[in-house]
């Protein structure tokens, strides 16, 4: 087994009823998405809220129905399994949620929370409790097993959630914004914990985040989502250095940098407007309504998925339709922006 999770051409819709007697009109929020997560690999899914990241997380776990596509989890095709038949396979993929406050049942103690997923296993209660205790210790929470969630800080709660996810020895953990509700210092602790658990247990992560500085620290590979589509994919370092898609560039430049000297602020691309309404993407390239480089072709033709020399793939006309502002032009723009200091705030809207 080399791939822990394989998703091919998956689409997901939400039902939407228009009016009192209107027909149910499905709203497509994830369109034709394919990706895989290898054993021990960390794959990050980044994008704005509403881009479909969390929907993908729930759909691959079959917590949401999918329109079409195929999901293979730990070499088992789970696409069409009934919920009952699926239950034993669920242990292979576990979820860690964003909000460590609502994801733990407030009426259970830490050890009960971690012990619960072990119930399906052929273990005595004693064995389960001992195992849960070890798991809590492995996430740095020894000696506090009998406490209730409210007695823990946000970071400690997230540790409990991680211990719970690890309990059934899954091949894959899907982390849905696992650190975005935490303080920066705590974020770093949790990221470091996740990283060391991956090294010791060989578990894979599908890591969902809108925060690129976090993604950079942990992910091997990045998938960039925009309006329900994957627009760019590649090894983390390369995507960060040479992004193919202007949207990735905008995401990268939007992260506020901590600099003491205002003049050193990088010039940034401030995207105008919002994501398109789900279910009604604009024609052509879905990003053209906000893209600073949009050309005529972008408004009419859907850009093809293209693989580039440096191992990054993406869909953008800039690199394929003979534009003067090709791939090198994009990175050149970024460099120019960094160097330019014509306004003291160092920002620009284009």
């Amino acid at each position, binding site marked *: 087994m080399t791939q822990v999770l394989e998703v091919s051409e998956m689409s997901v819709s939400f039902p939407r009823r228009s009016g009192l007697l209107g027909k149910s009109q499905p709203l497509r929020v994830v369109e034709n998405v394919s990706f895989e997560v290898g054993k021990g690999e960390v794959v990050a899914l980044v994008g704005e809220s509403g881009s479909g990241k969390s929907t993908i997380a729930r759909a691959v776990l079959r*917590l949401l129905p999918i329109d079409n596509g195929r999901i293979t989890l730990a070499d088992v095709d789970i696409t069409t399994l009934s919920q009952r038949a699926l239950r034993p396979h669920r242990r292979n993929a576990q979820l860690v*949620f964003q909000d460590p*406050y609502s994801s733990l*049942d407030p009426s259970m103690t830490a050890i009960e929370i971690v012990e619960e*997923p072990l119930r399906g296993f052929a273990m005595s209660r004693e064995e389960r409790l001992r195992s849960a205790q070890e798991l809590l210790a*492995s996430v740095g929470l020894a000696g506090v097993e009998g406490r209730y969630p409210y007695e823990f800080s946000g970071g400690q709660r997230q540790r409990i959630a991680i211990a719970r996810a690890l309990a059934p020895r899954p091949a894959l953990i899907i982390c849905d914004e696992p650190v975005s509700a935490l303080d920066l210092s705590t974020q770093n602790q949790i990221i470091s914990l996740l990283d060391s658990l991956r090294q010791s*247990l060989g578990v894979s992560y599908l890591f969902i985040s809108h925060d690129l500085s976090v993604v950079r620290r942990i992910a091997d590979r990045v998938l960039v989502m925009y309006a329900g589509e994957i627009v760019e994919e590649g090894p983390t370092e390369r995507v960060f250095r040479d992004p193919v898609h202007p949207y990735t560039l905008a995401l990268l430049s939007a992260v506020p940098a901590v600099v003491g000297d205002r003049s050193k602020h990088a010039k940034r691309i401030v995207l105008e407007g919002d994501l398109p309404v789900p279910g009604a993407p604009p024609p052509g390239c879905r990003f053209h309504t906000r893209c600073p480089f949009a050309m005529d072709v972008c408004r009419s033709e859907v850009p093809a998925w293209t693989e580039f020399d440096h191992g990054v793939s993406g869909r953008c006309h800039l690199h394929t339709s003979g534009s003067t502002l090709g791939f090198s032009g994009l990175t050149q723009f970024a460099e120019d922006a960094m160097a330019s200091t014509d306004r003291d705030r160092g920002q620009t809207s284009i």
Partner: protein
Amino acid sequence: MTVVPSEGAAGSTTGEATFLRKRYESPSRRFARRLLSQKVATASGVILILVVLSAIFAPLLAPLDPNKTDLRNTLLPPGSADFLLGTDYLGRDVLSRLLFAGRVSLVAAVQAVSVGLILGVAPALVAGYVGRWWDWLLMRFTDALLAFPPLILAITVIGILGTGLTNAMIGVGIIFAPRFARITRSAVLSVREETFVEAAKSMGLSQPRIIWRHVLPHLLSPLVVTATVLAGMAMIIEAGLSFIGLGVQVPQASWGSMLSTAYRFIRVSPTLILWPGLAIMITVLSVNLLGDGIRDALGREVRDMSS
């Protein structure tokens, strides 16, 4: 497993004793500690226990036979010799009748609430969790029941099952069921959306397990509160039914029936109406206050608001 960054125990400044107590305190002990720390609730609990005990031991506590008439001593004021709270229009001892009537009223309340809980909670739990047409059907049915005036429905049930207090209280329980159902359903709907329920699903837990372990405990506190409020209401409805002669049968007394007979002599002996009225008020009030206390003691932990 590997060495992982430790966050350090947040409670390292907490004393060892509190630490151990927190670590080993069972949920029921915690509940008891938190309930007892509330003065009003504890006092209400004590009063309620006294009321229950006085009803149980009524034969021992009552100075006279509650049904023995004495036509030479009718409508005596409180403080008369041998009759601490006076006598009624047939010369029966009011204190003795009050103690025995408590038995009837308390049993009536428990019966009505139990019937309501049994009929209301289970279907609503399933309806709320499963949803779809089950939910729709149950809610329309409860709407229909709720539209009935309680007394009319109770009278209908008595008409079908025959007179008697238990039958009347079954009727009242049927009236209560939709209230329990609504509370249960709305609590299930909100708990169902909690992330920890989604987490339980994604772990592959079975539905009965999720309902039992993750949904039901969170229904406890709204249900306890509803039950106490309705227990008070049951006594008042019982009083109403006895008032029109459909509840308890003569010569037996309930607080409600005492109230109704006293009403006729309000000009001659105004204190007569006071005793059953006070008994109902004190019992209902302590049940409600205890219910509040139970809710707070069971309630979800308050999130730390300092940030």
